[in-house]
């Protein structure tokens, strides 16, 4: 056994991850769940020892996630084929890691719940699932179905109980089976490994593109995804054709958007919303025929969160895309300077800011009308919920542009991610008190007007950034 190689793999597992900032995410996960875990342990009346055990399990889960992710980062087809001894060392390490973590988790579970061997096998199954979903992220769907109760968890519990009660030789055989499964999950550079790696790279490219506000690079898309994309982007292409048929000197800012690849996002958004409305309407119509006992308005009420948060996240997403393009790529910086007919300096900055603010307000108004129109078929509290969500999202454009003027380039992403947490609580409160839609919207408009009135520094001169 080449222990130097093992040490190097372990070291790199903590140094490199598929996503930058993986440590921060893991820490956030632990901190976020620490209080609920402690609460559950204390609520079960088992004292501080149990609370410590519950928190220890959280830490173990985060460590398992980070360690496995670090291993997958190294398991590329090229290294698997060319780096001597790497695959074997990784297999040995993965098996060791999972068994050690399962043993530690079993100890904690025993201290907390007195589960004995059942704790070991439960932890082993969870760890196997972690390994599987990290290897093949689409397996999350199965895991999610399990958590959401679609799959019966009874057989799993039965399996755990059966294994824990089985004679030692059988348990050893099961452990050997787990070890073989784990070893087999390490890619050796074959066709399956290449396909898996390609999916992984696509996922990373998609995430990176989303963070930078760019569309997913076409080269990273498989054929089916390109075709699916065509279903959604045709209104944008229609808008582009219309713009290009105009004389070259006309609409310079719209042409700039075209060059930056962000023009006509509003057309996609409206089309997607129309598709959602169509799907929702069809679902309600079909349900009313198949199951007349189900109330259609209740279905729409249950869809309120997806409707409002989904639609307004799309809106904030386009805001993020527009702003990110000004900062993230040299190509777009060059466009700002070199594109003929474009105003320069302060005029360009102010022009773009005004244009995007106008676009945002118009899109917001259209989306609000559309979701309110759908919510009108729901219950009164549905309307309250949707209107309050819309009101919360309205001042976002001010906030983002304010930050942009202060030369902070990453606020767009935050705006997009903030939609759900920012609007959920007020919307839920408004729904519970059935606050009239007009009142919520008026409050949102007032906040926006106040912000706009208080905030009048000149915008930063473009191009700025790279």
């Amino acid at each position, binding site marked *: *056994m*080449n222990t*130097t*190689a093992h*040490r*190097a793999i372990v*070291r*790199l597992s903590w*140094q*490199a*991850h598929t996503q*930058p900032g993986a440590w921060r995410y893991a820490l956030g996960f632990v901190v976020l769940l620490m209080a609920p875990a402690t609460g559950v342990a204390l609520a079960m009346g088992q004292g501080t020892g149990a609370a410590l055990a519950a928190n220890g399990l959280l830490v173990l889960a985060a460590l398992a996630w980070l360690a496995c992710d670090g291993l997958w*980062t*190294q398991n*590329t*087809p*090229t290294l698997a*084929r*060319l*780096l*001597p*001894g*790497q695959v*074997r060392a990784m297999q040995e390490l993965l098996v060791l890691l999972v068994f050690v973590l399962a043993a530690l988790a079993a100890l904690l579970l025993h201290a907390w719940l007195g589960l004995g061997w059942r704790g070991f096998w439960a932890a082993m199954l969870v760890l196997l699932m972690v390994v599987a979903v990290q290897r093949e992220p689409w397996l999350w769907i199965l895991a999610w179905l399990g958590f959401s109760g679609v799959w019966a968890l009874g057989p799993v519990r039965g399996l755990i109980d059966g294994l824990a009660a089985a004679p030692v030789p059988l348990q050893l055989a099961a452990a050997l089976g787990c070890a073989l499964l784990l070893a087999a999950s390490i890619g050796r*550079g*074959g*066709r399956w490994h*290449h396909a898996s790696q390609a999916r992984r790279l696509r996922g990373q490219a998609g995430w990176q593109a989303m963070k930078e506000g760019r569309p997913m690079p076409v080269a990273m898309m498989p054929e089916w995804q390109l075709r699916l994309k065509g279903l959604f982007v045709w209104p944008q292409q229609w808008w582009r054709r219309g713009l290009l048929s105009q004389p070259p000197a006309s609409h310079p800012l719209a042409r700039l958007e075209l060059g930056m690849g962000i023009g006509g996002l509003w057309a996609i958004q409206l089309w997607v919303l129309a598709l959602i409305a169509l799907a929702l309407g069809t679902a309600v119509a079909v349900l009313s025929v198949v199951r007349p006992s189900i109330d259609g308005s209740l279905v729409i009420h249950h869809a309120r969160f997806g409707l409002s948060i989904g639609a307004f996240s799309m809106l904030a997403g386009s805001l993020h895309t527009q702003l990110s393009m000004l900062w993230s790529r040299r190509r777009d910086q060059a466009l700002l300077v070199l594109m003929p007919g474009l105003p320069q300096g302060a005029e360009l900055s102010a022009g773009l800011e005004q244009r995007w603010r106008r676009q945002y307000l118009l899109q917001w108004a259209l989306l609000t009308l559309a979701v309110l129109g759908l919510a009108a078929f729901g219950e009164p509290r549905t309307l309250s919920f949707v209107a309050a969500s819309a009101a919360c999202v309205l001042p976002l454009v001010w906030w983002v542009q304010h930050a942009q003027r202060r030369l902070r380039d990453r606020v767009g992403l935050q705006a997009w991610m903030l939609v759900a947490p920012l609007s959920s609580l007020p919307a839920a409160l408004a729904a519970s008190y059935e606050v009239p839609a007009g009142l919520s919207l008026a409050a949102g408009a007032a906040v926006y007007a106040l912000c706009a009135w208080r905030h009048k520094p000149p915008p930063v001169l473009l191009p700025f950034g790279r």
Partner: protein
Amino acid sequence: MNLSLPWWRTPRRAADRTLSLHAQTAAAAEEPADDMAAAPTVRVHGLSLAYGRTPVLQNLDWRLQPGQVVGLLGRNGAGKTSLLECLLGLRDAQAGEVQLFGQSSMTLDDSARARIGYVPQQSDLFEDLTASQLLAYFRSFYPRWNTGKVDSLLSRWEVPTGTPIGRLSGGQQQRLSIIRALAHDPDLLVLDEPVASLDPLVRRDFLRELVGQVLDRGTTVVFSTHILSDLERVAFNVAFLQTGRIALQAPLDALLEEVVLATGSESALAAFAAASAPAQVLSRQAGRWLLRGADRSAAPAGVLVQPAGLEDLFEALT
């Protein structure tokens, strides 16, 4: 894992054996090796690869002898990268077989892997790591690691060792990739467009290093490039990839000496080719023929015969 094989304990030097810096001719390439000393480092037989319905490599045969330096030339999309990937077992071919050091490239053992250095076209380095961390990682897997060479190259090529790789420029990442590939003194070095993003000074130094590697250790080198001037500096052999096959592989000096560019009327060129038989017509364009092995003194009136350059060969053979 037994990596303690005799060839690591006794580093080979140029003086220890006869270097073959020239590629085999097509006829010689067909002859089977009769002993292990003459066994080719790379043997490709009947390799075919297609992407969907587009054929890329078609029944390709190729052999590289120990110590050969071969520049692989081909147009964009000709399949150079695919060929190099198939060579190393990084891509599954639909048909054919590749052997490296006498083993199938798909099932190489660790001792064979330790003898290969590879620089891919696109950086595959871990971007979170610094150069030092990356090199420490790779050092752990190779039984042979030339620390002196690594330190010297890092310093000469000015690669920052404490900065995350993701923050290095494209050229710096490329340099690091080359250092990583050279660090374990490989016996086979496969380089896919290694100099594309290097500045002229580093490029020259890299080529010098490459020649040093060949002369000191007898490393077999195969590299693809579009920079023909670099090829002329270091490639003792050139291989032209055309329509999925190696159209021609030959020593570069001999090729430049033997191939002529003849210009004139079609009838006069045909007469010249006939008079120069058995000269090989490599390409025919209107009024511009490329011939190999033609007798210059046999050129009829109206035919201008000039030495052909690598660019002419590239145009004719790819």
